[in-house]
């Protein structure tokens, strides 16, 4: 079963960065970068070698390489270059753009491109090519890119071969952060005019690798671009990729991925099964990345059903030991997240909010009594006016909620049962999820979901009050609070990050107080790399794995 990691994007605002927990050798190899351009230098593991093929055990196979999925961005990072890249601490560094200036009114960005860069189809990178890309995004060529800039982007103009100007409708501070994501990889102009099908199978950029062959259902083979000149400022070495090929295998089964790593068939793997975490840490270089944005938390249906009553929602939050359950279900690997609106890796995160609603069955019972759910039926569930306290908890099984997540929900279900909730778990199939079968107020009472984004501006996307004229279908709690809406809007237009964070903290408090959502755990991404492979790293905007600096040692 494929486990889709849905790409979650931020349409609005702000820079800043996620915490990345780099472990073991990865940090050590940072020093071995510079001297490696020509012959293989020596590194901690042994003699560095040029060439070789990295077998990367990835998870889900996307249907198309030009789209808005995170899984697509992971691949695109290695074949496309973006204008800028994000470094530690959220700073923006040059990539295809050697430098840039921003006008005083924050409405005009002028980029100066690196000279001598060529796409892999031989055409040169020039300002017009980048302008074409902006127009392509705006047209919807990449849906995620489109919605990330759409309300702000006005036009892009090539000034000369190496200079272009991007004009905005209104100030948009997160623009550069957004542009750092692989959704904004620059495609060759020839590539843009091809059919959707060709664009899907083989997007042409100026990256360190290009698509050699895509054996659907099995693997995507990337081959090194020998003429690569446009590495980003954050690169660990100067020059084309050191390995010859990256064999991007699609293995949906985590057990099989880990087995491939242990048998040496794969040199790196995506998403270590939590049960194998300890052994993986002992034998391999393990990197974990906590995704910024909305963590995995339960949307509570405030429009229909038992959760229309805030006391019942609060009782639900008090009624289970979520922290202990997350600890057990994820074997202590994935952190509990008590803040339902933004993850601990998100700038503007309010840690105080996260500690609300500790496990307190007495409090939960008291709240339910107050709410009038005083009866108990034969099965021990609470009733009110003869109606059982039923909660339909639907979850996108296999995609958003993995097997471990399902175990977590089952543990919670038993605890909720103790205080009188009859929670029915409803696994959604992917077809149902996509069809929107669980998107209406009558289709569920609670539903867990996450939404990756580099910024707390994600709050606006999720919690913006829905109006007739401008419905917000992303507000899956159907929670329309105009006060909350205006607090978030204030945050978005604040002049400084400090001011913005205050507003965002206020918003987080409102959501938590109202229990419009209930926090569960952080969305994380992890990779494990074999001991003889070095300098595989995750970029900062959304944890895309980077292979151009990687090399083997004997």
């Amino acid at each position, binding site marked *: *079963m494929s486990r889709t990691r849905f790409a979650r994007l931020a349409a609005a605002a702000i820079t800043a960065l996620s915490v990345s927990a780099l472990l073991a050798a990865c940090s050590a190899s940072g020093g071995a970068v510079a001297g490696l351009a020509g012959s293989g230098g020596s590194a901690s593991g042994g003699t560095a070698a040029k060439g070789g093929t990295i077998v990367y055990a990835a998870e889900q196979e996307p249907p198309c390489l030009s789209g808005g999925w995170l899984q697509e961005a992971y691949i695109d990072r290695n074949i496309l270059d973006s204008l800028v890249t994000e470094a530690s601490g959220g700073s923006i560094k040059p990539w295809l753009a050697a430098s840039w200036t921003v006008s005083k009114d924050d409405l005009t960005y002028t980029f100066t491109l690196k000279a001598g860069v060529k796409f892999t189809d031989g055409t040169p990178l020039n300002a017009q090519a980048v302008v074409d890309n902006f127009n392509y995004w705006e047209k919807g060529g990449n849906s995620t890119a489109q919605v990330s800039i759409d309300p702000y982007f006005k036009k892009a103009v090539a000034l000369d071969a190496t200079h272009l100007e991007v004009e905005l409708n209104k100030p948009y501070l997160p623009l550069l952060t957004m542009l750092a994501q692989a959704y904004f990889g620059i495609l060759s102009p020839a590539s843009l005019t091809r059919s959707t099908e060709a664009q899907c199978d083989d997007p042409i950029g100026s990256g360190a690798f290009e698509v050699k062959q895509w054996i659907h259902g099995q693997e995507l083979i990337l081959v090194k671009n020998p003429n690569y000149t446009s590495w980003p400022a954050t690169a660990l070495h100067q020059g084309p990729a050191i390995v010859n090929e990256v064999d991007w295998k699609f293995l949906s*089964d*985590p*057990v099989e991925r*880990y*087995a491939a790593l242990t048998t040496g068939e794969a040199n790196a793997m995506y998403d270590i*099964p939590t*049960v*194998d975490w300890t052994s993986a840490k002992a034998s391999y270089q393990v990197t974990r990345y906590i995704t910024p944005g909305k963590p995995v938390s339960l949307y509570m249906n405030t429009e229909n059903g038992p959760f229309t009553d805030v006391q019942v929602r609060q009782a639900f939050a008090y009624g289970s030991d979520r922290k*202990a*359950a997350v600890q*057990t*279900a994820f074997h202590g690997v994935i952190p509990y997240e008590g803040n339902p609106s933004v993850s601990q890796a998100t700038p503007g995160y309010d840690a105080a909010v996260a500690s609300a609603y500790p496990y307190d069955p007495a409090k939960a019972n008291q709240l339910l009594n107050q709410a009038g759910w005083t009866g108990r039926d034969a099965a021990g569930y609470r009733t009110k006016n003869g109606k059982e306290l039923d909660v339909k908890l639907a979850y996108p*099984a*296999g995609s958003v909620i993995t*097997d*471990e997540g*399902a*175990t977590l*929900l*089952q*543990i919670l*279900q*038993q605890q909720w049962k103790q205080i009188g909730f009859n929670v*029915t*778990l*409803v*696994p*959604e*199939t992917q*077809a*149902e999820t996509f069809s929107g*079968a669980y998107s209406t107020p009558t289709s569920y009472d609670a539903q867990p979901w996450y939404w990756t984004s580099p910024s707390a501006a994600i709050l606006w996307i999720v919690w913006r009050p829905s109006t007739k004229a401008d419905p917000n279908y992303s507000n899956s709690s159907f929670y329309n609070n105009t006060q909350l809406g205006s607090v978030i809007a204030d945050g978005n237009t604040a002049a400084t990050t400090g001011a913005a964070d205050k507003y965002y903290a206020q918003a987080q408090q409102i959501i938590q107080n109202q229990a419009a959502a209930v926090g569960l755990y952080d969305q994380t991404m992890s990779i494990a790399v074999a001991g003889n492979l070095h300098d595989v790293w995750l970029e900062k905007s959304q944890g895309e794995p980077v292979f151009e600096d990687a090399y083997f040692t004997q």
Partner: protein
Amino acid sequence: MTAVAVPRAGALARLRELRFRVQLGTVISSLIVLVLLVAVVAPAWLTHRSPTAIDLEHTLLPPSLSHPFGTDDAGRDLYTRVVYGARESLGIGLGATGLAMGIAIILGFAGGLAGGLVDTVIARVLEVAFAFPVLLLALLLIAIRGPSVTTEIVAVGIGSAPGYARMVRGQVLAVRNADYITAATALGHGRWAVIGRHLFPNAMRPLVAVITLGIGQSIVWASGLAFLGLGVAPPSPEWGALLDSGRMYITTSWWLEIMPGVVIVLVALSVTTLGRTLQHRLEGAAR
């Protein structure tokens, strides 16, 4: 006129003829099925624990005296879950096979008895149905109706119906031409009387064994659906669901995958073995 001596059909001889050829396999199979039936009817007789009671202090314990099959990732006793899962798993097996047989009997008898155009139309319909293997049908149905026990029963039932329908039709054709059918007609019995009193019971007799095979196979199919993430909703201890959730632990906590697997195999094997014993007996009796 000489009275012919009564043959050795005396009580003793008949007893010897009727005597069940007791084989070890049959005995073991019967025992397993017996335990299974207890698990279905009164699971509490076999375990004092609850299948959903979690115990975060005792997760992933290997098999021991107090937890014969070990515990799972939520600290639930796996043995208890397997015992309680019997009802749903067997329900899927019986339900799917029952549904399949129901469809098969209608189509098989209509085709076999009516012949001509009706038979041709049914044969075509069956051919189209054959193009939908069980799993393909299940995928489609689950996409339409969402995963549930009912969907699994319907999917596996409809998926295996064409095979049964062909068997029923074959049986109807074979029995239709049997001498005793002709004999009943020659005695002056009406068409429906002959069908009801002779054709139906005799055509269905050899299918008793097929039905028991089908029950085992349906359980096995249901576990395949669970593997594709299309099984019944948690925390149901349905066996296929147990297998699916155990997969992640195959290298670290083997019992979560192996124990339910062994139980599924043993049950399918026992039901099948009993079915075959029954088949051999029925065939022996018919000869």
